């Protein structure tokens, strides 16, 4: 399945775009997604940390990703 990933903050700079498409197998995990993204964009590994949000909720590495989920890369937040 092709998943469109939203990027914010420095992740947008790293991807060079506010979204990127990733090809994932069905029932891929957040961890699988991170592995793929880090292979394509090694600068992600230089971040202090980053999270993945699935449908507007922070996801755990073992959570699975389904078609039509809204996926976003959340680099370290700095609001306030």
């Amino acid at each position: 399945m092709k998943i469109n990933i939203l990027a914010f903050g420095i992740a947008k700079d790293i991807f060079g775009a506010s979204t990127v498409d990733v090809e994932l197998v069905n029932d891929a995990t957040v961890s699988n997604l991170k592995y793929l993204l880090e292979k394509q964009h090694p600068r992600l590994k230089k971040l202090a940390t980053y999270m993945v949000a699935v449908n507007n909720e922070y996801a755990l590495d073992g959570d699975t990703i389904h078609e039509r989920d809204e996926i976003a890369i959340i680099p370290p937040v700095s609001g306030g």
Partner: protein
Amino acid sequence: MNVQIKLSVSTLHLQDCVDWVMAPETGGIDVFVGTVRNATRGRAVIRLEFEAYEKMAVSEMEKIAQQALAKWPVQKILIHHRTGGLQIGEIPVIIAVAAAHRDAAFDACRYIIDTLKQTVPIWKKEIFEDGEVWVAAHP
């Protein structure tokens, strides 16, 4: 409704925020007003840019407000946060908490700003004369 959450590209209005949380049974209001500082580690900041993952940011702020309502006897909670470009002295965030007694207002307000800075998907870019930095991105 006892919670008001807002992301806004335009100026935040302190008086409106405090008016909204005030009620006849309120005894004290604690308000946190963030401001744009003119320097970070000695380096002059020209302006800031705030970016938000808007839908999730609002839902995370709503969660924090609900947690605060569950933890402390507070009456009303307001969280307003700016997005877009801000000049020095402008206000990125206003948090106002009304309670019958002040201790709860102080505790809840501080919890909200501390948690907001940890969990709400909003990003701040500091623009210097000679470059720009996404705050907290790197170790």
